[in-house]
């Protein structure tokens, strides 16, 4: 099936969404806050990936009457889509960003997600410099959902990704969305309930700082740490992770994220929270970080990583 996005054509298999087709092209990809390709049924909630379909298909060339969510709309043969070339889409995205930020506290200086936050990127690109919202923002009290994960419900944008991770990755889900409308919140109802071996992946899929790593809480800022790919023999998961170093110390372990900020393979809590020594890991290489990311400011490519010497010895001894 041939689809044209922003005047670039590509052949895609039937059943591909517009967003996936745009990702195959690799340029001018609509931003995603709730869609996660690894999670079934995700997407369609945040509306930040809205695009304009100027030609429905070869058989029915009428344009679609409204902007469509590209993550939930499948391509048709001969479809023509406008993303950043349409001022209407950009205006809509700006409004969506404004809506997403209405109840967001914008406490980026405090938040541990700052620097790798999707909402931060979105508002940097599409947001207003000043809020037009006069009313009181929705505020939740901190609740303790478990020993490893810190939850800040105030920062949540209700993307449901964490609920889907728990549904699709673990046998029993113990958290979900309570209440409805503006009062809806992610919660466990019973405190300290989350203890599943794969629950830590909620941190990785969260697009904002609503779910963060308690072992990394306030330790450093993301842009002061250096990401390194590493692996270990893990019985429960693939063991392929990113280690975030500050000096010779591993401050944080996360899954490996690809170009679209999605984890390639989910990792277990043991790898994520309890293996924080270089000795536990076999280091592969420096992580690839977009040079537009603030994290890349700390990656001195001319400097040989100090950790390498130790690591080269490690595989021999095994």
């Amino acid at each position: 099936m041939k689809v044209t996005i922003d005047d670039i054509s590509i052949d895609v298999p039937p059943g591909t969404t517009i967003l996936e087709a745009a990702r195959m092209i690799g340029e001018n990809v609509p931003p995603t806050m709730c869609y996660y390709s690894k999670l079934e049924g995700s997407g369609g909630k945040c509306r930040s990936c809205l695009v304009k379909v100027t030609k429905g298909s070869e058989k029915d060339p009428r344009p679609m009457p409204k902007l469509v969510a590209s993550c939930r709309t499948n391509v048709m043969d001969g479809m023509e889509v406008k993303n950043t070339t349409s001022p209407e889409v950009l205006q809509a995205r700006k409004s969506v960003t404004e809506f997403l930020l209405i109840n967001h506290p914008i406490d980026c200086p405090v938040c541990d997600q700052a620097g790798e936050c999707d909402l931060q990127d979105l508002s940097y690109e599409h947001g207003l410099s000043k809020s037009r919202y006069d009313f009181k923002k929705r505020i939740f009290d901190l609740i303790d959902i478990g020993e490893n994960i810190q939850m800040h419900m105030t920062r949540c944008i209700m993307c449901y990704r964490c609920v889907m991770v728990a549904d699709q990755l673990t046998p029993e889900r113990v958290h979900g969305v309570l209440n409805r409308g503006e009062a809806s919140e992610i919660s466990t109802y019973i405190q300290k309930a989350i203890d599943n071996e794969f629950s830590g992946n909620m941190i990785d899929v969260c697009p904002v700082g609503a779910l963060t790593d308690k072992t990394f809480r306030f330790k450093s800022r993301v842009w002061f740490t250096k990401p390194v790919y590493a692996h270990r023999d893990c019985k429960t998961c693939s063991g392929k992770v990113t280690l975030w170093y500050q000096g010779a110390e591993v401050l944080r372990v996360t899954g490996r994220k690809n170009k679209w900020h999605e984890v390639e393979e989910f990792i277990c809590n043991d790898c994520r929270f309890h293996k924080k020594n270089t000795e536990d890991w076999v280091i592969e290489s420096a992580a690839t970080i977009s040079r537009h990311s603030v994290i890349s400011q700390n990656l001195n490519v001319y400097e040989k990583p100090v950790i390498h010497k130790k690591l080269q010895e490690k595989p021999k001894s095994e």
Partner: protein
Amino acid sequence: MQSLTNRSKIVSNKTMTWSERIYLPAILAGLKITLVHFFKKKVTLQYPEQTKDHGPYFRGRHVLKRDDQGRENCTACGLCALSCPAEAITMIAAERKPGEEHLFREEKYAIEYEINMLRCIFCGFCEEACPKDAIYLTEMIPTADYTRKKFVYTKDMLLEGIEPKDRIDISKRRKGIREGAM
């Protein structure tokens, strides 16, 4: 050969006249200048006793501000350290405990905050980067000292006091930054 830039000066070797050769008129002209300056207003300041007012854009040593209720503004976000071209700023963050709400404005605060005044180039990027209105450059000057260690200013040296008399006024500078003048 002719010079390409045509900027070189051609030196003339003309011989001096008789009046020039006796040098007396030139000496007298010089003495006159000295005499005129003798009665002019003096520009020298007797420094420690007398001081000069700084210009509005003067950038001296830093101060960590508190808000109106005496809570620390700094939340240890690290943006000053990130923007610092001289790598002079370091900090360690900590979480605010329940009951410390009157001390720190946000959930997170800097438990340690250091500025190395030997590294600092007083560019003012840190105050520009600060999202919490916490750090400002003042008119104070880091004093001379004998050891390098003493130029590493810790948080208790940088933080202003809670009492109104201990506050450091930066309103002029804040206004200038907001208007984009500095």
